[in-house]
């Protein structure tokens, strides 16, 4: 028998052979296929769940970021700053010369021609105080601030207005002269009180946004004071020069 024939015979016999597998074999295959199936399903489920959670986190972060930016706007445009700046920057610009003159006159012990050096001024200042505080409490102008805590702030501003008016009236009665500086200091103190009160929440904790606003305001205020002082000095120099020339 040649090699080829022998191997051919082996091939035929082995290829025709069949061995019956055990009864359990199919169950093992079936369970093996079942194991593979849920794995795919699990991956899909985990993928969907992860996607959903991711979307949720992104949306929460997005909306939180939006809220944060609103709060930042509140801090930047906080009403006390505006009202005070209006009072400190714009009003003095127009009335600055007159007020400084008045101050100067009072310092030098000069009386006005009409003989009522103090009576008009307090009334005017009281009106300006009222206007300034009314501006603060105006909901149209400072609508963002009102969003945070409308009623307690209104109450506080109202209280402060009455307090300032009472103080102005008292000073008006007692003191011979009520200067702008005194009224300004009263206003600023009231403003500070309002801002400090705004810092504290109902539960006693400190409002971070309001605190930041206050710090920014203080920084801004010191800068404004510097400019105010420089303007004042410059103006006095000019005024003295003009007075000397006239003399």
């Amino acid at each position: 028998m040649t090699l080829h024939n022998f191997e051919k015979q082996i091939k035929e016999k082995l290829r025709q052979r069949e061995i019956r597998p055990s009864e359990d074999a199919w169950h093992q295959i079936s369970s093996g296929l079942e194991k593979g199936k849920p794995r795919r399903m699990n991956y899909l489920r985990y993928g969907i769940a992860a996607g959903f959670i991711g979307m949720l986190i992104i949306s929460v972060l997005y909306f939180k970021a939006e809220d944060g930016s609103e709060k930042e706007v509140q801090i930047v445009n906080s009403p006390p700053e505006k009202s005070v700046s209006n009072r400190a920057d714009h009003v003095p610009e127009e009335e600055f010369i007159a007020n400084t003159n008045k101050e100067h006159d009072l310092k030098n012990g000069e009386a006005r021609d009409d003989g009522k050096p103090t009576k008009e001024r307090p009334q005017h200042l009281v009106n300006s105080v009222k206007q300034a505080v009314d501006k603060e409490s105006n909901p149209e102008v400072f609508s963002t601030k009102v969003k945070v805590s409308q009623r307690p702030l209104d109450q506080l501003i109202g209280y402060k207005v009455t307090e300032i008016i009472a103080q102005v009236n008292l000073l008006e009665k007692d003191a011979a002269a009520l200067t702008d500086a005194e009224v300004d200091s009263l206003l600023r103190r009231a403003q500070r009180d309002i801002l400090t009160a705004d810092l504290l929440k109902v539960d006693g904790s400190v409002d971070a946004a309001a605190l930041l606003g206050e710090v920014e305001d203080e920084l801004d205020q010191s800068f404004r004071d510097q400019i105010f002082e420089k303007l004042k000095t410059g103006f006095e120099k000019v005024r003295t020069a003009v007075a000397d020339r006239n003399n």
Partner: protein
Amino acid sequence: MKRFKHLKIISLYKNEKALIYKATEGHREAQQRLYDRFAPKMLSVCRQYVKDLQFAEDVMISGFVKVFRGLEAFRHEGSFEGWVRKIMVREAISFLRKKQFVVFDEQEFGDSALSYSETSSDLDVEYIQHLIDDLPEGYKLVFVLFAVEGYKHAEIAQMLEISENTSKSQLFKARRILQEKINRLEMSGNSNARQN
């Protein structure tokens, strides 16, 4: 009669194709039918490589799991049985490699022609299997792949990650061992006949 036979073959083929399509979709009954049809032959294939029947069955089981999971890869270009058989062969080789049964020696082989004795024509399949089982794993793999499965040396070399020369060497040595065993069998057969 011939027409009936022809129709039967066509219907079987169509059934097999339909079964394959259903099994591809994950239809468990179709998968079981395909398994029932091919499992005995595939266990025989695995048994050619793996001496222990239990291990051979394990190889067949993991092979069928791969078959059903990878049915989408079957293009219906060749026979389904051939495709399944290839998977089983690869699975058996992988099993032997994992168990580190296979050792290929690189010794050169002679060129002398081998011829089996005439008595070997009476060999039954169990004895053939026994002869193959007794071969060293490396020889056995190459011999079965070459002589039974019909792979070429280049293909065997690629499958087993060996050189073609090693494949040829393994085959030569396997044949020589088989020849010696058959010669011994022949001699013992002759002596038995004389005694009778």
